[in-house]
């Protein structure tokens, strides 16, 4: 169990080596160091899992304390790991998916002259922060990881900091996430005030000892943090912009791991949320709304990574919906499968972008099916998984959520229908991007002259190397089989595995939704059919009749424009928050500029003027000094004489 600290230590060492000693290492070494560190952490994670599973079911929650972190009067926080099936599962996902994406990044970033060291150092640092977030045994340590991943995300979005768009996106992500952090901090303060502790064990065990109103406030404040981190409406605007970072970053941070931290928090703090039904209802509706909202915007986006970003937002909406209706294990199940298929989609998109020299616009792709066959296969598998086509992983996890939305005591028909409908839209827009990328005639131009000789291909495309192919293959397999750990009425591996998480504290248990029966299969088949219809519609519109798609866009120009501009939310925020803040700042900077500068400059001016006047006294003639001394003495004596009486 104690080995879990090695999981933290390996990426930390990778970061330290690259950051401190990296300058003297060759360019290729940075990626290899970072990747090996991840592999080591991944291996250790399996040992931790084996250790955990060797314990009896009811004891599978361990509070490993490394040292007393903040010992203060009346307040105590330890630096420790909370190991239970949930945190260990996340540990495996982060180190495992992290490892393959690191491997992919070696190939993806290979041509970069500068910045590889920085890139891999930050990537490792991100993993460290993410693991702190996951493993934390108290809310305060969780916040450390929470802020850490925010910083790593900022640093990696702005990897190409010389591009204004990337720098702006990084600032935007950081500001919005900080907003969430503030909400979370207030939540943690309230937890401390209410329960007198911040560690999970005490808080969860005493969860019921507080007023419902207080718990609702706590959960809502924590939710603000979760919304910001997971890109949920209304704090979602940073996520699409974050795609300005390199593609492996989008895959790892803005799809597979960091953005799921919000879901993790909700599930981690389930004893609190269980006691705050109002918050759960809010989460369910926000999640359902975000799922639909993201999917609708994804319909018309022209940048392949943005399509995937909106789909991430939408899929995270599903997870929030699941948590909101109390189906915590379904949320985590979807988190797991989503990590596989969304990382796969991003990496496949990365291969395409890499192949055609950095182009991300769907309108300038096309016809790449036979050119980069592995990307075609991988993107197809990822697409089928996200569309919920059996037997791909997304089918099982998404239907679990849709089923819960319909049948849970907290769910209702409207939530279920939104989830169902969104599934169809998801299939449509993902396959729209698939067909636009890989089918019909090529619309790209290759700008790289030297690549032909380099790679030995006549078409001038960058072909992915082995280090990029292996991750695609691994993730493809996982995107297919990843869902087979939970097949209603047949396999209950996943539910059984997570069960200890929801059995502790024993005072009350989370409602367990054993999906299955005729209702489940009806919904599942309906969802799969809807997905198939979505794919078929995309095929019809973007392969068979591309003119019709343009025609439709023209006929519904108003709707198209609204969707394309993402419902003008960015513009709205810009008008309400950004511009007034900037104007306020400018006004104040004027005041301070004049006021403070005036004060400082005035002091300097006064001294200078005074000395210019006073220096006249210094004539350099001895007799003048003597005269002054005499005058001074006379005055002094006069003073003494006239006051002494």
């Amino acid at each position, binding site marked *: 169990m104690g080995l879990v600290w090695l999981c933290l230590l390996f990426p930390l060492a990778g970061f330290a080596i690259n950051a401190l000693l990296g300058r003297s290492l060759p360019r290729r070494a940075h990626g290899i160091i970072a990747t090996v560190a991840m592999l080591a952490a991944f291996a250790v994670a399996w040992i931790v899992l084996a250790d955990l599973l060797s314990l009896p079911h009811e004891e599978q929650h361990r509070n490993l304390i490394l040292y007393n972190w903040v010992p203060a009067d009346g307040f105590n926080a330890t630096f420790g790991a909370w190991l239970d099936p949930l945190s260990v599962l996340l540990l495996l996902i982060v180190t495992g998916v992290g490892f393959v994406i690191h491997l992919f990044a070696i190939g993806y970033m290979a041509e970069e002259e500068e910045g590889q060291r920085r890139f891999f150092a930050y990537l490792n640092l991100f993993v460290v922060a993410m693991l702190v977030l996951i493993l934390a045994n108290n809310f305060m340590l969780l916040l450390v990881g929470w802020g850490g991943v925010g910083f790593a995300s900022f640093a990696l979005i702005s990897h190409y900091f010389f591009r204004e768009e990337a720098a702006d996106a990084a600032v935007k992500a950081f500001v919005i996430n900080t907003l969430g952090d503030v909400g979370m901090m207030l939540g943690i303060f309230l937890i401390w005030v209410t329960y007198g502790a911040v560690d999970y064990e005490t808080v969860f065990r005493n969860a019921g000892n507080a007023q419902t109103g207080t718990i609702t406030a706590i959960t809502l404040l924590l939710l603000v943090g979760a919304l910001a981190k997971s890109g949920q409406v209304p704090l979602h605007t940073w996520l699409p912009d974050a795609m300005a970072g390199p593609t492996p970053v989008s895959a790892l941070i803005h799809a597979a791991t960091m953005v799921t931290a919000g879901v993790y928090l909700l599930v981690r703090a389930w004893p609190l949320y269980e006691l705050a039904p109002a918050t759960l209802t809010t989460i369910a509706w926000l999640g359902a709304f975000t799922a639909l909202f993201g999917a609708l915007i994804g319909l018309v986006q022209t940048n392949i990574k943005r399509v995937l970003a909106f789909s991430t937002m939408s899929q995270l909406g599903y997870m929030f919906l699941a948590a909101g209706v109390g189906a915590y294990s379904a949320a985590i199940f979807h988190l797991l499968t989503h990590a596989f298929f969304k990382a796969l989609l991003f990496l496949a998109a990365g291969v395409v972008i890499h192949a055609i020299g950095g182009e991300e616009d769907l309108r300038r792709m096309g016809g790449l099916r036979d050119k980069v066959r592995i990307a075609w296969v991988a993107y197809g598998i990822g697409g089928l998984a996200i569309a919920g086509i059996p037997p791909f992983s997304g089918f099982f996890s998404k239907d679990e959520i849709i089923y819960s939305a319909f049948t849970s005591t907290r769910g209702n028909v409207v939530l279920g229908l939104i989830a169902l409908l969104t599934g169809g839209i998801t299939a449509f827009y993902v396959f729209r991007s698939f067909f636009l990328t890989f089918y019909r005639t090529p619309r790209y131009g290759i700008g790289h002259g030297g690549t032909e000789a380099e790679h030995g291909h006549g078409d001038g495309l960058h072909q992915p190397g082995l280090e990029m192919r292996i991750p695609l293959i691994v993730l493809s397999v996982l995107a297919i089989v990843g869902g087979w750990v939970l097949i209603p009425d047949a396999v209950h591996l996943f539910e059984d595995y997570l069960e200890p998480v929801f059995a502790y504290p024993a005072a009350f248990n989370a409602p367990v939704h054993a999906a299955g029966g005729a209702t489940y299969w009806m919904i599942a088949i309906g969802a799969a059919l809807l997905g198939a219809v979505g794919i078929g519609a995309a095929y019809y519109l973007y392969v068979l009749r591309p003119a019709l798609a343009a025609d439709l866009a023209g006929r519904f120009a108003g709707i198209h424009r609204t969707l394309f501009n993402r419902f003008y939310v960015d513009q709205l925020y810009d008008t309400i928050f950004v511009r007034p803040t900037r104007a306020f700042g400018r006004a104040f900077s004027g005041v301070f500029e004049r006021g403070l500068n005036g004060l400082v400059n005035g002091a300097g001016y006064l001294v200078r003027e005074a000395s210019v006047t006073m220096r*006249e006294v210094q004539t*350099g*003639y001895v*007799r003048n000094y003597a005269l002054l001394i*005499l005058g001074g003495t006379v005055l002094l004596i006069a003073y003494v004489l006239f006051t002494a009486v």
Partner: protein
Amino acid sequence: MAPLSYYFILSAVLFTIGTIGVLIRKNPLIMFMSIELMLNAANLSFASFARARNLLSGQVIAFFVIAVAAAEVVVGLAIIVSIFRSRQSVDVDDVSMLKG
């Protein structure tokens, strides 16, 4: 013995002569002599008071002043000599490099 006021009048006259000498003469040696005059005017006052009040301390202070004056002359003459060596002149108005 003459009245005490006579001594003070003499002392004041001597002091004034010395002061004027320092202020208006340009020759440093004359200025030195004027300073000595001022010091001795002060010595005269000390001695007169000591005598009139029958106290020893005033006389002792006069001796101190004489000792300090001797030391001052040594330093002052050394400065004058070195000024003369560097600029072949001892006119105090030529030495005004400290002008601000």
